[in-house]
């Protein structure tokens, strides 16, 4: 179980240092769930403090907690607490740290949040400029007009 991970581990602790200098002491086996960290350890065996330059302390804390607690129930509730910006930063963190379970959970969550939205909303969220001409866009909408029924209100 997720909880047992911390008890059954060796007593070796590792320090992770977030980009804003916040330090986290974690058990080795928790840290190893982050494949990037694992690779780091493989390369430099004696290291005690590993810098995580891309992830803020706030997000690293969330990631570590996820690793400790992940199970079906936890995952289902996990994403509900975060806004879109946090989700994106967490996704980038999970991607960088190479934690596939968390990455999948976050991709699912983001997909769920955009799936029934209008293209305008999605453009705003992803900050994408609409480079279709009005004619092109009208054509696309017409071609797939059946897909535009039942869209969530922005």
């Amino acid at each position, binding site marked *: 179980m997720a909880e047992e991970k911390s008890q059954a581990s060796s007593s070796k602790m590792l320090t992770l*240092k977030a*980009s*804003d*200098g916040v330090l986290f002491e974690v058990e080795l086996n928790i840290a190893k769930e982050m*494949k*990037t960290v694992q*690779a*780091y350890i493989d*390369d*430099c065996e004696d290291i005690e403090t590993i*810098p995580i*330059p*891309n992830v*803020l302390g*706030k997000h690293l804390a969330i990631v570590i907690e996820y690793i400790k607690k992940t199970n079906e129930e936890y995952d289902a509730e996990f994403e509900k607490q975060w806004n*879109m*910006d946090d989700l*994106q*930063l967490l*996704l*980038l963190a999970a*991607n*960088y740290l*190479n934690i596939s379970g968390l*990455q999948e959970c976050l*991709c*699912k969550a*983001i*997909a*769920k949040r*955009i*799936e*029934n939205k*209008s*293209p305008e909303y*999605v*453009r705003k*969220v*992803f*900050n*994408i*400029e*609409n*480079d*279709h001409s009005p004619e092109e*866009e009208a054509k*696309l*909408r017409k*071609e*797939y007009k*059946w*897909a*535009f*029924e*039942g*869209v969530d209100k922005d």
Partner: protein
Amino acid sequence: MNCVGQSSELGSSLSIVESVENVVFGGDVRCCIQASPPRGNGSRNTSPMGRVGSRNTSPSRQKVVKTKPRGLDEETHATFGKVVHADVQMEDNIWAMLPEDLLHEILARVPPFLIFRLRSVCKRWNLLLQDSSFLKFHSSVPSHGPCVLSFCKNSVIPQCSVYSLPLKTWYRMCFTFLPHWAIWLIGSSGGLVCFSGCEGPTFYILVCNPLTQTWRKLPCMHFNQQRQLIMVVDRSDQSFKVIATNDICSDKSFPTEIYDSKEDRWSVHQRMPASNLCSSKMAYCDSRLYFETLSPLGLMMYRLDINCWEHIPAKFPRSLLDGYLVAGTQKRLFLVGRIGLYSTLQSIKIWELDHAKILWVEISRMPPKYFRSLLRLSAERFECFGLDNLICFTSYNQGKGLLFDVDKKIWSWIGGSAFQSYNNQACFYEPRFDASIY
């Protein structure tokens, strides 16, 4: 290098964290982004200029630190330290810096029907369905879930709707890409849908993928008539087979023919040892085709591995006039039929074949309230089809759909009434972009 977002000079508009030695700017923008919640400067992403100034000079800045983002090759360097200058266009929104493969991983999890909407977001996204990275993720994420396809060809224009069970929504997908002669829905498997019809005097079969709007006519059979057909897809192999048994019109017995998409041809096999009258009820599971015969009511099985027919001496329930064969998951085979047609105790029952004992075992009965609601007139026809362990009933005259989950033993109605009355043909369908017609 393209990236979703406004700026194609993405590389130069990023602030690179000082302690990183190896950063890749390539097809995937694996950015090492320093972003943080606003610290009183109003915008969602703080400008890099602001960050650079206020960041801690940690000791690690001087060390050579190997960071190795996932998938990174150590040889690839990029000049880091592209500090942003105040006048460079900066993404206001951190989303724009999302690496493309992560974007594809997200979009691959959006239900297929809804992807179409997203195609109008921008030109790049419009090409999503041709992007191999997106398709790769799409193939590997769990399937969207079962949908019910309802097809009705009244005059010229096919009316087709697809009900997504997970989304509980009907989508009036466009089937006008099909040739006008395709009027009979044979079935669906693995994202492909099979139709047949007559163009002039010739009988043809086609397979299509409704999502990609592609279709292909199959070569004619050796004994090319309107025959009882079933299509099965093998996703692991990316191939499909169509099996043809008896002539529909005359009940003549033809040699069984099998079309294999890998060879793009029909092979001829053993004729089914004919009973007098054959029903059109077939089901396929576990590499076996099950066929219900009438007069007497019995079960024949065609084994694809050894290409021959076998009789299964399972005794059919008494007072069952005829029934539907429905395949479940793995080896499960169900029989669905009406008992007591002319009595007041009429009902619809479901049996499962016990393969070991060669026996039909009753597993469920449609509750009377559903029965009365589905079939207004007691002798009314109904259609029945299944996918995994879901069985769907549609009533011939009323345009209603009823679902039964065999495992959970739950009955539920399909909302909305997109089942056109009479002329309606329906089957289960799993939307997939990657189902190939070849």
